[in-house]
């Protein structure tokens, strides 16, 4: 009996080992190296290894660096909230109002933006939002504005670019939750006298919360770590944390500072995970 259990355990370990080795080689070890480098210092143009907290201290005391974190958080929270508010009704319509045979087509149309490259999509938005872009030209032609609006190269442009992308992601996660709901829940609530709004608030929403939180968490993680969208659409008018990390790497060659800032970003993401862990159902994505 014992030998059968041992064989089973060895077999299980053999199955799990490749995945563990993969995570060890491509996540744990690089991450440990990054933690180690974050305690080094750049002296002149030379990296001096040791146990120094200078980089962390500098990040929290230098306003231009710390501001990168607050800007990232502000943008990420706004993008996540707007994306949820837009994605939920869209997912609802697809799941509840679109006939089943057209739902696949509707979903495909909803995720069309995923088909284009991230960079191309951002530059396309630049052309839409620019001074001579589609929006300004249309509003000027309609006489709605006298002067072109300043949309490109602003935080608003960054948020628009992000929301466009993440609404699609959230629509998928919320839809996958909604479609699993039995219609009997709504019928039972109606039988008990609940209004449509009360049914949504007390029955549907709590049951779909895991999908919403999962999508929101993914949006948070992807948005706060994104470099391309704010770089192209934000016009460098304010720097997010990933942009500041790139600045340390590309311009200063300051790998210790870049590592420290990456660890801080990782800590923020971890905190977001713990905040949403109760509702997270990543297996439902």
């Amino acid at each position, binding site marked *: 009996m014992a030998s059968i259990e041992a064989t089973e355990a060895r077999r299980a370990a053999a199955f799990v080992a490749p995945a563990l080795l993969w995570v060890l080689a491509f996540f744990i070890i690089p991450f440990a190296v990054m933690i180690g480098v974050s305690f080094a210092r750049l002296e002149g143009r030379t990296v001096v290894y040791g146990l120094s907290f200078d980089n962390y201290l500098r990040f929290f005391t230098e306003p231009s660096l710390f501001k990168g974190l607050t800007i990232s958080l502000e943008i990420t929270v706004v993008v996540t909230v707007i994306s949820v508010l837009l994605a939920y009704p869209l997912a609802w319509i697809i799941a509840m109002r679109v006939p089943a045979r057209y739902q696949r087509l509707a979903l495909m149309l909803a995720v069309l933006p995923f088909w284009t490259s991230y960079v191309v999509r951002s*530059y396309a938005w630049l052309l839409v939002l620019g001074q001579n872009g589609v929006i300004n030209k249309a509003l000027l032609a309609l006489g709605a504005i006298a002067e072109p609006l300043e949309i490109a190269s602003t935080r608003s442009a960054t948020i628009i670019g992000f929301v466009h992308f993440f609404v699609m992601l959230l629509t998928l996660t919320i839809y996958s939750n909604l479609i699993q709901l039995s219609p009997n829940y709504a019928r039972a609530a109606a039988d008990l006298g609940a209004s449509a709004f009360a049914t949504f608030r007390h029955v549907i929403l709590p049951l779909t919360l895991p999908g919403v939180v999962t999508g929101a968490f993914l949006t948070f993680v992807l948005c706060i770590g994104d470099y391309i969208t704010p770089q192209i659409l934000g016009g*460098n*008018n304010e720097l997010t944390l990933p942009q500041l990390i790139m600045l340390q790497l590309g311009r200063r060659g300051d790998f210790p500072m870049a590592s420290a800032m990456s660890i801080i970003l990782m800590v923020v993401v971890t905190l977001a995970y713990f905040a949403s862990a109760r509702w997270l159902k990543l297996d439902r994505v």
Partner: protein
Amino acid sequence: MNRLTTTALVSLAMMQAASAEEINALVWCDHADPALIEPFTAATGITVNLKEYEGTAAGLAILDQSQPGDWDVLVIDAVDVGRAVDLGLLAELPADKLRNADFFPEVVMADNNTRDGKIYAVTEKFGYNTIAFNKSAVDPADMEDMATLTSGKYDGRIAIYDYYLPVLGEMSLANGVNTADMTPDTLAALKEPLMALRKASKSVGDVVASQTALATGEVDILVGGGEWLTAVLHAENPDLDWTIPKQGAVRWAQSLSVLEASEKKDAALQFVDYITSPEGQARLATSSCYWGMPANAKTGDVLTPEQKAVLRWDQQPAYLAKTQLYPVPDAALDQAMQDLWTEMLQN
């Protein structure tokens, strides 16, 4: 075709392939224009394998990760030649085989390209980080004075090229300090004018973003721009222009060198000779990636009048006189410059 003929042809092709020489060149994107490289290969039979890079640090990293002899030719920022010489990367070039005598005297740059009387690189192309603008949207006379940019007249219509060295160098000149004399102390005096310029500007962007902003009319002025940015757009929009204000501007220059570890130095030297010849210089100056002034003054005989007009050929004596090389900061000044730049970006 019988078997004997086929065998003979294959053997001939193999012999040709064996005798054909190849060199590997680590270059900037202007060298990747086939119109520049193909005539050299056609004339000499030497194939040039190109790898593009941006920024001296990236180029040095590639060399560091390569085997000795992997690379034969290196294009490098003129202000960084000394750095490469210190690392023992560059081979001495035979003075009698160089065309320096034909160069604009100001861009021979012996201080940069020579060490202990030995020449390690030759200047191949230069230009300016100055003010580029759309002359249909701004008064060109205003662009002759840096002070106009922060006068309020062009608020929200300015972009800043996101490279701290030339822009801070330009602002230092406007503040009366030569680029070679910049120190952390002189830098402190630039904070106020830099923040004022930032306040008047709409965006700060890299090459592509800056070019897009100017080309689409998003902005009308680019601080740090120059012929390298507007010339390639000239055919589409002749209103895109540039000038050097009365306060002066920063001059960039790129140098060409042969690597010490190269095992094909003769072929590499042939390439250097071609690139610095008037014909090679004309093609390099008008490369599809970016334009710039050729170092060889005799190139004027090869360029068309239109090309010379875009490059402001006739104004070069005056421009050379009122421009200075990029600042070459030590580590402390570099850190101070980048701190100031980051602060400007976040405001």
